[in-house]
């Protein structure tokens, strides 16, 4: 004769057995968790990529600055010398040089066409400054320049950098918001599924209460089940998402935005955190739903 004690089972396993198996609909929870995690991987890739992009743009533009000198013709050389002298004595500057006429002409060529008589035009003199480590104090430099060369204007590209960095960080925010929404949607769906399962098993729950089961015991049976389903689904979804991201073409030298979508270095570990996170969401959602529903069932 086979008795229940003949096959040792942990209390948790037996808690799982007291609720009858739930049939084909069980797959819906796994599927939902999988699909949500799959989407989450891409939202994560988007966030990380836009974060990287923001840093890259900021850094590239932050390293260089331009001093523009507009002065009467007879003043140009004097003030240029004054600027160069000022720069030479400013700490935090790696290098600097004045652009000669040929370079200035090259810069303007796309707009005015070749053969521009630069000498005849009141074109400002440009001086390129490359930031050192630690960087110079741009406000201090601006004031010294104002004193030494009134026609000089320091442009450290803040005007360009700010909107770019803002756009990138806004995209990152959207990515994070998407991840939060995906998590919330998964919690909502698992709550609904758990409530349906609890309602279907109202009679089983009644029997368990009758023989002295606490709510926590009954909840455990459901919570374990849904947590495991979400974990399985999320693991599959995360794996599929990672394969999808890995299959994207690699970023080329130009570092275009779309081709830069993906993970780099430690970033590849982020998606691995998603399945445990999904399990955690399922755990909390089912537990909450179970205790709520159990109170209704007396």
């Amino acid at each position, binding site marked *: 004769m086979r008795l229940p004690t003949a096959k040792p089972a942990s209390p948790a396993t037996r808690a799982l057995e007291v609720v009858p198996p739930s049939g084909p609909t069980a797959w819906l929870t796994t599927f939902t968790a999988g699909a949500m995690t799959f989407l989450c991987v891409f939202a994560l890739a988007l966030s990380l990529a836009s974060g990287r992009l923001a840093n890259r743009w900021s850094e590239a533009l932050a390293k260089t600055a331009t001093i523009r000198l507009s002065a009467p013709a007879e003043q140009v050389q004097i003030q240029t010398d004054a600027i160069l002298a000022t720069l030479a004595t400013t700490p935090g500057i790696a290098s600097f040089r004045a652009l000669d006429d040929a370079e200035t002409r090259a810069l303007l060529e796309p707009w005015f066409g070749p053969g521009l008589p630069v000498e005849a035009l009141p074109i400002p003199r440009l001086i390129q400054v490359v930031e050192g480590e630690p960087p110079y104090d741009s406000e201090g430099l601006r004031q010294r320049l104002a004193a030494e060369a009134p026609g000089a204007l320091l442009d450290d590209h803040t005007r360009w950098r700010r909107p770019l960095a803002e756009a990138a960080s806004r995209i990152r925010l959207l990515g994070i918001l998407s991840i939060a929404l995906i998590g919330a949607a998964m919690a909502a769906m698992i709550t609904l599924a758990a409530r349906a399962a609890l309602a279907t098993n109202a009679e089983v729950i009644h029997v368990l209460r009758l023989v002295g*089961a606490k709510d926590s015991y009954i909840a455990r049976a459901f919570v374990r089940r849904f947590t495991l389903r979400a974990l399985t689904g999320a693991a599959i979804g995360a794996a599929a998402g990672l394969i999808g991201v890995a299959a994207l073409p690699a970023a080329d030298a130009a570092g275009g935005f779309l081709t830069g979508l993906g993970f780099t270095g430690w970033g590849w570990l982020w998606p691995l955190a998603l399945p445990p996170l999904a399990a955690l969401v399922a755990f909390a959602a089912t537990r909450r739903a179970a205790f709520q529903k159990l*109170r209704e069932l007396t």
Partner: protein
Amino acid sequence: MISFENVAYSYGGGELLSNVSLKLAPGSFHFLTGPSGAGKSTFLKLAYAELIPTSGRVILFDKDVTTLSRDDVARTRRRIGIVHQDCKFLDHMTLAANMALPFTVSDRESSAQDMEDLLGWVGLKHLADALPPQLSGGERQRAALARAVIVDPDIILADEPTGNVDWEMSLRILTLLVELNKMGKTILVATHDLNLIRQAKAQIQARVLRIAKHRVQLAGADL
């Protein structure tokens, strides 16, 4: 053990029970009788805290049921063996697993020896592995009784335990209940079977509670 003080219970419409005051002393054997729909099941449900009285107080093991938390109710029920008319089994689990359920849900182990003794006592050893729907009415009732007593409760409440079985099986179940009473258990059996009550009175000192006109009264010796 269980006492009712001026208890009333009403469903949405009218009052089903009113002004019920009584005490079940430890080791007593009571029958609860009355026409169907008179409130026998309701009375039992009040006695195991599935229902809360609309007025008055039900005291279980020295505690007012209205003060019990859900976990307290669960703990209290581990001291009360309940036999339902329709048995209330989990149909996907074997008979033995169903009988061990009160142990399972309190994360305790039932000893194999106790289990075997209990199966032997109710005569169901050969059906330990059967699923509840495969059993006859009498087998199910005996299994329900075995499940009710497995955790060694102080009180056994049985709702029409002989409702779906023939006379011979009724006597067998009665014998089991009488044996439990002789072991010191407090027993309350709701039944409308007066023959069963007569039969019991021949074996044991049993009192009869009758529900009539919403009241629960101690019946005379006229049965």
